[in-house]
């Protein structure tokens, strides 16, 4: 899980049965002591792998939306909740947004990648080796970063990594004002990895977002990939969507199985794409 704190923005991403939405009210309260008021809220997630284990209000997306709305100021009046389906009924994308303004603020594009069925050999990099227990979690995390090739996704980023015991990995990447994050659980049968980063339609060359996403997916060679792309003030770029599909197809053999777009008042446009290997 990760937390990013900017001067006027906070991003919290948690897995397991965490109670993420309980952070809304205290964060609004803390911000108020600094003279800051809430401008917008965005909650998103994929379909839970073990939905029956999630505590209230995560029992259904509808319950989550009710809970969030009860904790938001009335000034955030432009609101929308949407479940974006894919060809696989168990892989939908859930988004709720609320904003004070109807027009989105100019923000970088956010890419959220979810991967399941990780390549078994590559996933081994995220297990701590026997006899390595004495090594601290930071040192073990650095080794996982290097062995897996995560350090090559963005060579300019400073990486803060952590290895869990006996397996699992989290890292945050820091590159100027841009963050990235990866979370991995490598256990066969329910292996999962996520990658998230920000970018711009103007990034090119090694920084081209399609290339960055390709390098991230290549670390895990997963059986299923979904990419949610959120466009704020820059507006939707169909070229980015198509370029991601071209690069993942040409270089990783991943075929786009579904693509859906939805607009959120005051919060921009979300594109949800799912991929599986062409041979599947």
């Amino acid at each position, binding site marked *: 899980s990760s937390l990013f704190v900017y001067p006027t*923005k906070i*991003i919290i991403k*948690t897995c397991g049965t965490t109670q993420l939405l309980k952070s809304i009210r205290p964060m609004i309260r803390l911000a108020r002591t600094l003279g800051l008021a809430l401008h917008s809220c*965005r909650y998103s*997630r994929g379909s839970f792998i073990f939905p029956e284990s999630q505590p209230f209000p995560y029992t259904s997306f509808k319950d989550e939306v009710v809970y969030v709305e009860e904790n938001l100021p009335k000034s955030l009046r432009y609101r929308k909740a949407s479940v974006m389906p894919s060809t696989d009924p168990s892989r939908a994308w859930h988004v709720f947004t609320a904003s004070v303004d109807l027009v989105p603020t100019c923000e970088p594009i956010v890419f959220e990648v979810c991967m399941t069925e990780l390549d078994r050999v590559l996933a081994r990099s995220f297990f701590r080796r026997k006899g390595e227990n004495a090594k601290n979690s930071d040192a073990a995390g650095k080794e996982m970063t290097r062995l897996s090739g995560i350090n090559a996704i963005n060579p300019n980023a400073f990486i803060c*990594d952590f290895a869990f015991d006996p397996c699992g990995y989290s890292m945050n990447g820091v590159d100027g004002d841009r963050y990235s994050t990866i979370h991995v659980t490598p256990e066969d049968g329910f292996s999962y990895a996520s990658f998230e980063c920000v970018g711009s339609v103007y990034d090119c060359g090694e920084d081209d977002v399609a290339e960055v996403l390709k390098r991230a997916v290549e670390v895990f060679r997963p059986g299923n990939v979904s990419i949610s792309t959120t466009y704020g003030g820059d507006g939707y770029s169909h070229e980015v969507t198509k370029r991601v599909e071209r690069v993942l197809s040409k270089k990783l053999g991943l075929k786009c199985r579904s693509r859906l777009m939805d607009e959120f008042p005051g919060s921009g446009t979300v594109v949800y794409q799912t991929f599986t290997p062409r041979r599947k």
Partner: protein
Amino acid sequence: MAVSGFEGFEKRLELRFFGDDPVSNAMGLRLIDFESLDEVLHAVQCTVVSAVANRSFDAYVLSE
């Protein structure tokens, strides 16, 4: 839930704020002390295991 207690797909929350005088308070939310952040994370059921910061933002790796 799996034996390991694992649930892969994350929940993600993004909150954006605005102030009357952003120039005089350029650090904004970054001025929140660690104890207060830790209390929020306690409610969420996470703790900080690693942290890094630069001129633009603070990044924390959490326990879950």
